[in-house]
């Protein structure tokens, strides 16, 4: 195959590109420049696509003897990922920008352009298994990225290659070291790449400005505090509420209402949900017949819980077998068919509209 290897400058995409070369594919490396004002050097383990990262990626490509280019997707990324991120928070939801980037950038803008230029597929260093059109969890449960890939359609997955899904991160680093890649020991990137200092609330405050409003206790309806913007909160959040209610029991964010700038908080017993409603789902393969039994994961790095899924006029109704906390509108409800042997199969996902 003629494949395009998306190379961030990190160890995963370096090894993915190497494995594609070793598998006999005709590989071209591409680094995606996603930030309009790229830093010369990386700062810490956060952030991405600095000029130094591009250099790291190019070093690997040169060692592999493959062509290497930088594609400037900063405008697309700003419009499809960053603006979406800000707009979602402004609407009281909690977006997942990595999912959006996979959906709109890596397996849309990049894949479309790659196909137009004569490539068959895009290779990335995502930790997920993909074979015969079936997307499954990585062997490395701690590094599994199937959650942020679940939004991809069969058509997108047909143009994707994930060489790392059947190995652990430790093994990826070994393979990098065996090949003499300097990035073998490079720190993993964390958090949101376009918020290099990790301060999401500060980032949103710069974008949206101060929007003070009340913190209301759900049990009494009393205003128990002030906040500087609903965008600083996520449903299910416990830390950083900045209030102490008389009974000293921990409080969780139960709801966010941007129109009145109201953040409702309550005790743990009020924070649990048994039912999740989503918008129109996407499926990684042919749409399954509903209702069905599945497992649902309600945010990145959460455990999946057994559930029953039914169709609704707006999308899906997901009845959870066990009560869950921290189900935030805007997050993706990813449905899996559990399979301990071959890895849980990703069926599809829908964006959470509300939960109760």
């Amino acid at each position, binding site marked *: 195959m003629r494949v395009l290897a998306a190379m961030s400058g990190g160890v995963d995409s370096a090894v993915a590109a190497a494995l594609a070369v070793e598998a006999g594919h005709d590989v*071209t490396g591409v*680094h995606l*420049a996603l930030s309009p004002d*790229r830093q010369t050097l990386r700062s810490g383990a956060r952030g991405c696509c600095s*000029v130094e990262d*591009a250099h790291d990626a*190019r070093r690997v490509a040169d060692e592999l003897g493959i*062509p290497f*280019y*930088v*594609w*400037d*997707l*900063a*405008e*697309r990324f700003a419009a499809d990922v960053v603006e979406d991120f800000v707009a979602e928070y402004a609407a009281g939801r909690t977006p997942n920008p990595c999912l959006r980037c996979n959906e709109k950038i890596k397996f849309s*803008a*990049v894949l*479309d*352009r790659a196909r*137009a*230029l*004569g490539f068959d597929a895009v290779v990335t260093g995502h930790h997920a298994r993909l074979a015969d059109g079936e997307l499954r969890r990585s062997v490395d449960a701690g590094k599994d990225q199937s959650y942020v890939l679940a939004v991809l359609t069969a058509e997108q997955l047909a143009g994707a290659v994930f060489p790392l899904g059947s190995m652990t991160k430790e093994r990826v680093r070994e393979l990098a070291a065996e090949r003499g890649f300097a990035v073998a020991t490079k720190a993993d990137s964390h958090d949101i790449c376009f918020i290099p200092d990790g301060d999401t609330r500060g980032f949103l405050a710069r974008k949206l400005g101060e929007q003070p409003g009340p913190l209301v206790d759900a049990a009494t309806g009393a205003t128990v505090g002030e906040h500087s913007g609903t965008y600083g909160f996520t449903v299910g959040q416990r830390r950083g509420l900045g209030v102490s209610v008389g009974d000293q029991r921990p409080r969780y964010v139960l709801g966010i209402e941007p129109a009145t700038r109201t953040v409702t908080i309550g005790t743990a017993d009020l924070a649990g949900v048994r039912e999740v409603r989503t918008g129109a789902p996407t499926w990684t393969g042919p749409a399954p017949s509903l209702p069905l039994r599945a497992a649902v994961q309600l945010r990145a790095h959460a455990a999946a819980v057994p559930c029953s899924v039914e169709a609704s006029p707006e999308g899906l109704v997901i009845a959870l077998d066990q009560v869950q906390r921290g189900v935030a509108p805007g997050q993706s409800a990813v449905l899996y068919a559990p399979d301990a042997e071959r890895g849980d199969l990703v069926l599809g996902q829908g964006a959470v509209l509300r939960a109760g």
Partner: protein
Amino acid sequence: MTYLDHAATTPVLPEVLAAMTEQLGRVGNASSLHASGRAARRTAEQARERLAAALGARPSEVLFTGGGTESDNLAVKGISWARREADPQRRRIVTSPIEHHAVLDSVEWLAKHDGAEVTWLPVEPTGRVTPEALRAALGDGSDVALVSVMWANNEIGTVSDLAALAAVAHEVGVPLHTDAVQAVGQVPVDFAASGVDALTLTGHKLGGPMGAGALLLRRDAACMPLLHGGGQERDVRSGTLDVAAIVGLAVAADVAVAGREDRAARLAGLRDRLVAGVVAQVPDAQLNGAPLDDELAGGPGRLPGNAHLSFPGAEGDALLMLLDAREVECSTGSACSAGVARPSHVLLGVGADPDRARSSLRFSLGSTSTEADVDAVLDVIAPVVERARRAGMSRA
């Protein structure tokens, strides 16, 4: 492999390789007083004389540097500073928006950090700076530190009449620097006859080594040093002379200038066939810069090896990648260290719209170019352009 990127760098000439290899085997610092030092100095000075002779300069006007970028920085900053020291009124630098970044960024640095003012010269749609435009920009010249205008543009290959420009600058007592990196060996360049006060050249565009260049600087042109130290080069440039590199530069310049006329005729013929063939297959391709047969003051008005074309609806980046995959090596313009393609400042500077600026390719022919190289491009250009157009002009 079809190498059509001689404006980026050229293959080292066999004569250069031999001369440098011989010199690299010898010990000796050209500033040392013993026999080894004397031998090194003799070799370096012979090279200086040879380079000077090839370019119509006096040996004392040759300052060896680390390349074109250093020469441009030295001329722009050093002459500006010297002029301002002599008369604080002289804060203005007159230059064109299509200069190489070594000049542009030096000028902009002086503007940002050193109180310089910049007057941007209007450029003809072909990329030429006219004497009339310079005269208008200079005024009475009393506040001008320096004029810097490139002899030939590195992207679109347009040549300006530097003798005429220097004469205009001298009418009001202003010195003129020219970046002649692309011009030397391609069009007639005679330092003394041109009247320019400072001229940048570099070895690796001539079949010489990288990291070796020179600034030709008139004996009466004041210039402050950028690199302080041993004062090896007329107290304007310090640093132990890289004798092997200097030898390579001098041999390359000599060979390039001596063979210029024949080579220019041959390259122009190849280039004309390349452009005609591309346009025959891609009828809406647009030639950027001066017409192929343009003439100027008795020489070519366009570099003979330069073909710079825009392909509407296709991105230069995609064209480059697709040609690279077919073993044809060319460029979208000047290389960018960060690797992110930007619309060419040269095309924008001559008034092209950003899409045209982003859809361009530069083929630059040189001493090793052959009919087969032209054929290789013509064999693949139509499908490459078609495929690049399918990928579109999205910023993806």
